[in-house]
């Protein structure tokens, strides 16, 4: 193994607030995240706000591995928070980012992560306006952890909420399910599957902003992260007291994802996504919304996957054989039930 050179890696002294810290900020963070608010380097970023309702969301990202097909921890940290705001009906404006870096983490990797964050921010039209960096000893953290906090304005006219769901509403997703979770898992577990599975990690705010402007019948959106479609649908169902009826045949899953999940005995409905969200929309707007997603946003695998019915907070999957199976929240690894 090649000897690490001190100049190539993050050292504890990069976090002590001295010269090295300053250098780190200048060389990486300020260089990539360049904007007026950040550049002022005051103790707090100060910005003015317009009247209206604001949304704020925060998340810590500790994903292992930090690089994966289709993304990295930096892109994920930006998308995760932006998407939480986006599906809440907000237009994200600013982010803060806090880094905990393990001593010995290569600058080259750090730079890639920061560049990727900056790029994602540019695409989504948001700015990182405050941040922090800490370095901890080897083994006290795993490579790098990033916490992002985002603020945004609620779009005027957007009216999202559990209480709006009613029987007859349609349920849509914007694309294929399970890619992110599977990409991460394959990278992490070293199962010897040379896969082409690419994470769907992507910021959603521009798309959500546009559809919320156009479609007043949108009643709820949810990004399908941890626990996948099944767990998130169940959470919504329980909070709103209606039943979800999903149609197995309509669920978009890439063939490669299908093949590998079958081999591994996994269910793509429980795998995390980072660029997929669920939309509950009034029946009369469902068709047009679907067309809009597919044609104007090239979301060619966007699908109507089911509908809402009166019920007791359950999620049912109409299976290919004509029956209906109840979907519950993910609870650890599923154990076989066949005797």
């Amino acid at each position, binding site marked *: 193994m090649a000897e690490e050179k001190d100049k190539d890696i993050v050292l504890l002294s990069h976090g002590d607030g001295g010269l090295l810290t300053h250098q780190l900020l200048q060389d990486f963070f300020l260089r990539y995240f360049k904007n007026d608010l950040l550049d002022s380097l005051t103790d707090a970023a100060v910005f003015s706000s317009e009247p209206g309702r604001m949304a704020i969301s925060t998340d810590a990202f500790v994903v292992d591995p930090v690089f994966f097909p289709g993304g990295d921890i930096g892109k994920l940290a930006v998308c995760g928070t932006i998407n939480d705001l986006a599906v809440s009906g907000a237009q994200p404006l600013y982010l803060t980012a806090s880094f905990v870096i393990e001593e010995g983490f290569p600058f080259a990797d750090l730079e890639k992560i920061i560049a990727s964050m900056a790029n994602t921010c540019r695409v989504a039209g948001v700015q990182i306006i405050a941040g922090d960096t800490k370095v901890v000893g080897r083994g006290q953290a795993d490579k790098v952890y990033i916490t992002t906090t985002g603020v945004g304005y609620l779009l005027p006219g957007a009216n999202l909420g559990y209480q709006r769901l009613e029987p007859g509403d349609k349920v849509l997703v914007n694309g294929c399910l399970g890619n992110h979770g599977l990409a991460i898992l394959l990278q992490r*577990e*070293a*199962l*010897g*599957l040379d896969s082409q599975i690419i994470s769907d990690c992507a910021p959603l705010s521009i798309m959500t902003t546009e559809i919320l402007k156009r479609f007043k019948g949108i009643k709820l959106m949810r990004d399908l992260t941890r626990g996948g479609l099944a767990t998130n649908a169940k959470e919504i169902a329980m909070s709103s007291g209606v039943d979800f009826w999903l149609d197995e045949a309509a669920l978009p899953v890439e063939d490669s994802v299908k093949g590998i999940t*079958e*081999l*591994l*005995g*996994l269910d793509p409905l429980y795998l995390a996504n980072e660029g997929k969200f669920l939309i509950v929309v009034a029946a009369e707007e469902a068709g047009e919304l679907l067309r809009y997603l597919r044609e104007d946003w090239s979301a060619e695998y966007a699908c109507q996957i089911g509908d809402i019915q009166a019920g007791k907070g359950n999620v*049912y999957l109409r*299976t290919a*054989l*004509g*029956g*209906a*199976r*109840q979907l519950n929240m993910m*609870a650890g*690894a*599923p*154990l*076989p*039930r*066949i*005797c």
Partner: protein
Amino acid sequence: MTRQVQPGGKTVSRYRIVIKGVVQGVGFRPFVYNLAQVWGVKGSVLNSSRGVVIEAEAEENNVAGFLSELKNNPPQLSRISDYQLSKMPPAGYTSFVILASDPGDEKEALVPPDVAICADCAKEIIDRKDRHYQYPFTNCTNCGPRFTIINEIPYDRPKTSMASFCMCDQCAREYHDPADRRFHAQPTACPVCGPHVEVLDSAGRNVAGKENWLETCWNILQDGKILALKGLGGYHLTCDAKNKEAVKALRRRKGRDAKPFAVMCRDLETVQKYCVAGEKEKELLISPLAPIIILRKHLQTRLNEGLPEELAPGLKTLGVMLPYTPLHLLLFSGPLDMLVMTSGNYSNLPLVKDNSRAAGELGGIADYFLQHNREIVNRCDDSLIQVVDGEPHIYRRSRGYVPHPVLVPRGEDEPVILGIGGEMKNNFCLLKKNQAFMSQYIGEIDSLEGEENLLTSFFNLRKLTDAIPEVVAYDAHPGYASARVARQIPARAYFEVQHHHAHLASCLAENGLGNEEVIGAILDGTGYGTDGNLWGFEILTGNYDDFQRRFHLAYVPLPGGEAAIRQPWRTAVAYLLAFLGEEGKRSAGLIFPEKNLDVIERMVAGGFNSPLSSGCGRLFDAVSALLGICRENTYEGQAAVELGEAIQETAGNDDMQTYPYETREGIIWPGQMLAAIIDDKMAGVPVQSISARFHRTLVSMVGEAVERVSGATGIKKVALSGGTWQNQYLFRTAKQYFSARGFEVLYHRQVPANDGGIALGQAMIAHWRWRKRCV
């Protein structure tokens, strides 16, 4: 003492007799009436919810004669479980009458199961001169629908789905004539007043009615078409069993690759043309229970000189039954003598029972529908039995048996307990006093429809048995839908029961044992263990209270979890890797060259989605896949069934051998056996012999472990439970082994050894735990 002198000068005595058990809907009252005429007894007979109440007044000797005849020669279908006699002051009765039913408040009368058509009715429907000629709903007090049409007790016409049919004068006359075979036959009907059939095509168009339905059905079936037939407890899908193409089409449309189809034959002669039926098997086939009997096909049948292989692919056996309703019998009065009779549903969904749902749910399978306007109240699948050493072993306890209780050792004043049962072959159990009311087969419940079926059936049986549970028991598996359902049922206490403990307790209960500690050899697929792993080859000691795990098969990871159960080749690879190391890896590569073994190996090594299992079913899977018998299961237990069937009937001396294995520290290690099996396979030993040796090795594993436990504890009773014991060869060999060594062998005959029996065990365990809690 009160005495009364009759005009003739003789003294008379009066007794009140209360008879409990199956005494309604079995011709009991006309029988009593006629008996009273014979013995000159005056008084009355009455159906109440407590049972049949008889007032009998006559000279002491005559009453005695009447009573002894009543006790010793009751009607064929009745079952007297309790008999109370009390002497009363004479009332001066002048005649014997049948009184109207008394709804009562105590509901002790038992609802009778459905009864196959009797010989008298069978004669009438083919007699051109009889008014029941070709009438598919003909019945009498000795036969006909019961459980499947009853809404409420006591069992009387207004409480059944016959309530909507108003009897014609002729039927009413028979119904009220104590001398008639149809006296108080609740579902009695004739072409004038009863239900009728119609034949529809898949578009719902009526293609035949009550005049020409029969010929139309014959034509449909002879054309190789598939007919959905509304029977007694639900729809069947039927086609000409001898028409290979029709059978194949049915498999394709039903999405059922290989799971054997049951057939219905015109008569015993037809059965025997294709299958071997012993005395006990024949007796059961023609009995009023009319279950499906698993029979061995004749050799020439197996060589495909007669029946399509597609009926039961790869198997030497065939499930056969005889016509049990007039409708079935009429179907066989034409050109056809063998029909496939498989349950009318898509895989794993409940049997369809309502006309309104048939087209929607079976429309993709059936070309035509033969249906009728008598509602099926309680869904009920056919029962399934295999005769082993002359004794019937029940694999699915449903039509004909339900709701007869299984009697178990338990006191009068105990609370009602519900055992909700298992997950895949679910049925539940309502334990009331010493009666275990096992529900009809519910089947797979991991679907909305399955769950609804479980709940509806529960509410119905609760009503019919007047058994409202105070205590509820369910399996400990965290993913079982049955447990979720059970926890929704209001009760004073809930008990979580370990799967194999339930198997053991079920075996104890049906064999009438009290809370006695025995050794349990529980062999089945997978059940949730107390350590969070999947058990299934367990040598336990225990009673109803508690159990201890003494020996078990070594754990093997199941790569992909449920995927491994569907694909035995995965489990085979996992076994080879786990127990034979590098050598095993080489063998796996040779045996499964086309599979992605690298991934399996990494999954197993990293413990990725690979739960640990000690299930015997998984060992069967592995060996079956290694031998190339079955690498993918298309139905539950396929690999194991086919491996069991691979044994040649006349196994030579070689096959009496066992393979080596090790037993250390409570664990049975199968590594040496697997190595030897692979050696045999490579050396060209026929799979028939390998299979036999494998089976004998299992018996030896079980035997050795049980004997060690017996040596340490002094227990000499061994209970064989779990689905694996449905393997005849294994069962017989083990039974001989233990009998020869002075063990008392307990096994299942009244409830299934498979998960269809665990509801009883759950309920009995909950009973004892509840008692303990209450003292």
